[in-house]
């Protein structure tokens, strides 16, 4: 069995405005290296909320979160930013590319922020990632010149640039048509199979979820099936 890379221990979260509503109730689960996990559930069941807690962006929760066996609680904002930079790659429903930069530069940004490799190396690696995703020809275009599917692939490349421990996706195919969804799914699958990349994808596309290694189903803030 592979080592555990992400572990949630009794994570609860409540929204207090306007009235206190508990959206997550003692969620506990763990992920191993190389797992391709999908989280499904109806709208409002708390799956996205869970993902944002797991991604360290949301810090207002109870319970414990361990990434790479390091507890995330009580870490400072800057330290969490570093964790996100090093260990987590994010793909959102919307691509969130910066139109001021070229595609290549967009992919490079988290790598440059990491600051381990020289700019030249980062550029080379970013180009490799784009190649894996089959969009190396668009490297020097601006994101707004790309199609929706291409943009999402650039976003995936950006998530991959620092060779993260885990890639998290929040409805990464939610905005895409059937064909592009398939392309994106195939990419995820390839990453999981060929590169042994761990993935945690929130989706409400059951067809998508069915093809992953493991499905976590949520309802009313609780995991009902793992």
């Amino acid at each position, binding site marked *: 069995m592979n080592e555990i890379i992400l572990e949630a221990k009794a994570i609860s979260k409540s929204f207090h405005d306007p009235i206190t509503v508990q959206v997550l109730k003692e969620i506990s689960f763990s992920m191993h290296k190389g797992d391709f996990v999908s989280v499904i559930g109806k709208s409002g069941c708390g799956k996205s909320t869970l993902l944002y807690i797991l991604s360290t962006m949301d810090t207002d929760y109870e319970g414990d979160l361990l990434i790479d066996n390091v507890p995330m609680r009580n870490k400072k904002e800057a330290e969490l930013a570093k964790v996100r930079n090093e260990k987590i790659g994010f793909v959102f429903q919307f691509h969130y590319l*910066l139109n001021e930069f070229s595609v290549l530069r967009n992919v490079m940004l988290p790598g440059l922020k990491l600051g381990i490799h020289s700019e030249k190396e980062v550029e080379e690696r970013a180009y490799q990632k784009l190649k894996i995703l089959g969009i190396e020809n668009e490297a020097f275009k601006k994101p707004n010149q790309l199609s929706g599917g291409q943009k999402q692939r650039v976003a995936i490349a950006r998530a991959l640039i620092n060779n993260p421990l885990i890639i998290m996706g929040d409805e990464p195919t939610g905005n895409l048509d059937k064909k592009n969804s398939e392309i994106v799914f195939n990419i995820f699958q390839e990453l999981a199979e060929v590169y042994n990349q761990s993935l945690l994808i929130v989706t409400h596309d059951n067809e998508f979820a069915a093809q992953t290694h493991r499905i976590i189903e949520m309802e009313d803030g609780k995991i009902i099936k793992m």
Partner: protein
Amino acid sequence: MKYKLILSISKSLLLARWKQTLVAAIGVTFSITMFITLLSFMSGLNDMLDNLIINRTPHVRLYNEIQPSKIQPIDNYSQYKNYHNFVSSIKPKNERLEIYNNAAIIKALKKDIRVLGIAPKITAQVIYNVGAIDITGVINGIDVEAENKLFFFKDYVTTGNYIDLKNTPNSIILGKGAADKMLANIGDVIQVTTTKGDRMQLKVVGYFQSGLQDLDKVQSYASITTAQKLMGESNSFITDIQIKLKDMRSAPVIAIEYQKLFEVEAIDIQTANSQFETGSSVRTIISYAVGVTLLIVAGFGIYNILNMMIYEKMDSIAILKATGFSGKDVNRIFITIALSIGIFGGSMGLIFGFGLSNVIDQIPFNTAALPTIKTFPINYNPKFYMIGSIFSLVTTYFAGYFPSRKASKIDPVIIIRGK
């Protein structure tokens, strides 16, 4: 490496809205330009007006004044020592205006290292006789060379050569106003009568224009020997000793010291012309206030533009944070944007300010009152440029500080979930 990345992101964000950025930078440029120009011009004017007085006023002046004796005989009478004595109708005592033993005083002064130079002077009340009409006036007997060295006498002699006063016996340089009244041309001989009733013929060798018209109507200059002759006094007769110090600020202290030491009256420049210093400082304060106001207005412009940029770039900020940029990094990015607007706008402002000052410096400014001034006065003090650049950086920093803090506190979850 890390700062290079922040710089490159700032640059891209700046260039993405380059028109707005330019407007913000122009705001800073304009205010710095006006700040520099205003201060240079104002301070040039101040210096000019101050010099009008300071150049021609001795830092310390030693003289004798006709005044009542401070100690009355009754004060010396032992029986009434402890009484308060009232003496009515005191009259000034008969005292000569001459400074006694002035040769020794001058010798002592010349040895004093704090003294830059000394110019002896005689002030004589006269009446200019023009046909049947008499005009009152004052003739200053001066040591022409010393006077020129210390008080720039040459600058104020508008017609004729100042040195002729020394070289031509019995010559006079008339105040312009007095000369106009008397219709006296260069080379004419005018007649003056002293208060004692002696008459003397003097040859006009030049006109003198001080900038103060009332003064020019009465004052004229003659060499010290001519003045002594006019007064019928010996060649040791001097009524004033004008002293210029190395450090003007020490004048009040030195004046008191000399008063005791030489037993004469002594007045310092600060006491004699206190109103000028007040005027200068008030003008300076006003120009600083206007300049700072301009900068603050420009600062609000930057604040607005950054705020708008942050609203527009909310998504970008969120994604930067999601991919591992900390709040501090985001803060730095926007501070960098603000500071680059400040640096760019500020340095342009310094250049334009210098240019505009230069243009003003070329504008002719001829006034009868100021014979030495040909163009508007400008003070190119590097201090103003220093203050201008520091101010531009400080205001833009603060204009960027609040929007940056706001940007750094943006919660990426809210933005990303909001879509």
